């Protein structure tokens, strides 16, 4: 059997990056939550904030460690899998990633140590400051890596000379057309992911009648946050799509499975977009609604898949179904958050046990929505690695398919192993619950693990 090195490199990269994104999308939100708790503790002196912070810090540490090791892999895979990308675009995206390392990674690593091991050695203000610094670091990291990603989706501020991109205007490169939307969408998604995990765990404790005081605080904070951010996410997603329509119309066409750009588009509730027959099989659709959503007009026209030759079209099922899963979960989050807010306002949250049961079991919605969203974005930009500049197939490294396959298998085994243990340990931390001890006096020895 002939192995396709491009496909293998793509599968490997898709696997490692999907695995990685689970952790940042959790830790970005969680870091901000921890910083808020630490600041509230520093400000009010209320011990429940400190206990909550100590509890979440342990979960944060495990998730962050998995994010660090899987992120390190990615920083090298860009070269091992896509070496032509660095030749063609290294001048432009290299510095964006360089700034991420210098601004964010060292900040996070250093101040996380102080958060975890500082204990009694450091004054309270330094503890609070470290939590804020880590949260700031995670957001900065998102800023730079999303800038680099967005530049590949909507390149700007550069000029091609001899097949190599040269920077012309750094401001335009960093703040390229899709970047502000992508950044807002992703940061908001991370906050929602963390919010729904906090909501779930608060509900889980309350249902079991454990840690009632802390759980109430957790639920109030999580519901207030998500009730604002979940509807906001719909709005951000909408203007992000508007931007995508302008710069990557084929991605929108794939999201809506819209073939013929000369006709208004129906909204496909379900369909199988079939590349061979250039049509949607098993389609259940609402006439004109896709046109209405995309162009804001009943008879609005927007480019269809047939507007570009087949070789320029993205893989359809990934984009089409990814989009539907993301939107579906987003709508669930809006409903759950708003209903929770209503219950809270009516003072009935704590006795509405069916609601608590539902949210306690949907801690995962943010993660799945984030991964689906990235599948839409990354599959949707295919066949381009840098839109209009470099095709993915032309960017692959001169590495034999056998090497890629071997390491792919290893990655799958190792990551599944690590992930299972990580999930198991996090679940055990949650079962163990919030400790009554007020301060996390974690000495370095304790971190190596002996509570």
């Amino acid at each position, binding site marked *: 059997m002939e192995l396709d090195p491009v496909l293998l490199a793509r599968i490997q990269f898709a696997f490692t990056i999907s695995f990685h994104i689970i952790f940042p999308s959790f830790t970005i939100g969680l870091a901000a939550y921890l910083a808020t708790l630490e600041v509230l503790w520093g400000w009010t002196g209320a011990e429940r904030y400190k206990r909550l912070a100590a509890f979440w810090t342990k979960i944060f*540490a*495990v998730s962050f*460690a*998995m994010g*660090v*090791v899987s992120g*390190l*892999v990615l*920083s*090298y895979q860009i*070269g*091992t899998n896509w*070496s*032509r990308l*660095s*030749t063609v675009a*290294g*001048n432009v995206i*290299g*510095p964006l*990633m*360089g*700034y991420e*390392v*210098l*601004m964010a*990674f*060292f900040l996070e*690593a*250093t101040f996380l*140590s*102080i958060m*975890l*091991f500082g204990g009694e*050695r450091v004054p309270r203000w330094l503890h609070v400051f470290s939590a804020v610094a880590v949260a700031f670091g995670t957001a900065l990291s998102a800023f730079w890596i999303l800038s680099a990603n967005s530049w590949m989706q909507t390149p700007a501020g550069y000029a091609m000379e001899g097949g190599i991109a040269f*920077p*012309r205007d*750094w401001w335009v490169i960093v703040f390229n057309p899709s970047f502000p939307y992508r950044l807002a969408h992703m940061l908001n998604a991370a906050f929602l992911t963390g919010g729904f995990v906090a909501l779930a765990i608060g509900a889980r404790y309350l249902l079991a009648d454990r840690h009632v005081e802390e759980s109430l605080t957790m639920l109030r904070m999580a519901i207030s946050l998500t009730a604002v951010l979940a509807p906001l996410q719909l709005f951000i997603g909408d203007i992000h799509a508007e931007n995508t329509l302008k710069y990557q119309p084929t991605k929108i066409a794939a999201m809506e499975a819209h073939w013929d750009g000369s006709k208004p588009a129906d909204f496909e509730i379900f369909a199988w977009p079939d590349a061979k027959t250039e049509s949607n099989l098993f389609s259940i659709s609402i006439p004109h609604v896709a046109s209405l959503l995309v162009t804001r007009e009943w008879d609005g026209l927007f480019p269809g898949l047939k507007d570009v030759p087949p070789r320029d079209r993205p893989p359809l099922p990934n984009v089409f179904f990814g989009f539907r899963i993301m939107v579906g979960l987003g709508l669930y989050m809006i409903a759950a958050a708003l209903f929770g807010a209503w219950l809270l306002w009516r003072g009935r949250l704590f006795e509405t046990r069916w609601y608590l049961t539902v949210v306690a079991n949907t801690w995962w919605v943010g993660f799945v929505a984030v991964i689906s969203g990235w599948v839409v974005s990354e599959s949707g930009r295919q066949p381009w690695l840098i839109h209009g500049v470099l095709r993915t197939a032309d960017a692959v*490294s*001169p*590495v*034999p398919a*056998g*090497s890629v396959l071997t*390491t792919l298998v*290893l*990655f799958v085994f*190792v990551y599944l192993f*690590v992930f299972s*243990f990580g999930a198991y*340990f996090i679940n*055990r*931390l949650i079962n163990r619950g919030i400790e009554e001890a007020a301060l996390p006096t974690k*000495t*370095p*020895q304790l*971190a*190596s*693990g*002996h509570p």
Partner: protein
Amino acid sequence: MDLASLLPLIWAAVIGIAVAFYVILDGFDLGVGILFPFARDDAERGRMLGTIAPFWDGNETWLVLGGGGLLVAFPRAYAIIMPAFYLPIMAMLLALVFRGITFEFRGMAQRKPFWNFAFAAGSTIAGFCQGLILGGLVQGVKIENGAFAGSAFDWATPFGVVCGLGVVAGYALLGATWLMMKTDGDMARRAGDKARLLLVAVLVFMAAVSIFTPLEFPRIAHRWFSLPNLYYLLPVPILTALVALAEWYWIAARREVAPFLATIALFLLGYLGLAISIYPYIVPPDLTIRAAAASPSSQTFMLIGTLVLLPFILGYTALTYWLFRGKVGATTAYH
């Protein structure tokens, strides 16, 4: 010389320094991992982890900076090195995944032996792969039309294996002398015993590399033994010998800090020696620092950021080493 032509050299220095920071900082914590199987019991292993737990994440970030810096400043070298050393790089990354995760997992796990093994094996394989990559780089990489044109196993040579073992021994020496500094009593004494053996091993490997490379590669022989280079470069081996001698004495005298500092000096001298052998190439035998450089605009944009941010990074890195200074005692290690 104007700034634009100086930029590649400045960047080569910046990356060289970042890699040196990495090798020394992650070197000692990888070294502690390499020494893990030789600990007396699990309590001692817990204490060993305790000496490095607050530092390892920051230390490993220098590896990201080294790789990232290469992409920023020398994208053409990055595009060649990464595919050329695909398998050892992947093996190193997987090994680092295992050992990095141990810091969090081992403490929570009921079965310690597995995570002890993961930590030791991960640390050793990571160090060995780094040595393989170093050896492969010194030997040279086949390039055609600006892309890697060799085969998947070009790095698998006896010389590469010697370099791999040398790096493992070197990291273990860093780890052992770190433990002499960070622990006390019987544990520090036994760390000293190991350091002595490891010092001998490291010197043997350094000698082997120093003899083999000029014999094998005329360009390296020419660099070191042609006049007047010989006079300028002679201090490097002489200093190495003096430092090694002093370290031997300091380990025997059970000094606490001096052996660690001497190991660092030994590493820096060895590193300098390799840099002298390789210069002006970034990927021998064809790609020079200048030819691999990114556009001046990219290098300038990043240099500004580096000059502004690096003092902060060094500042708060120093802060953590200061906060977590002192010995990690047996009494606080376990309960």
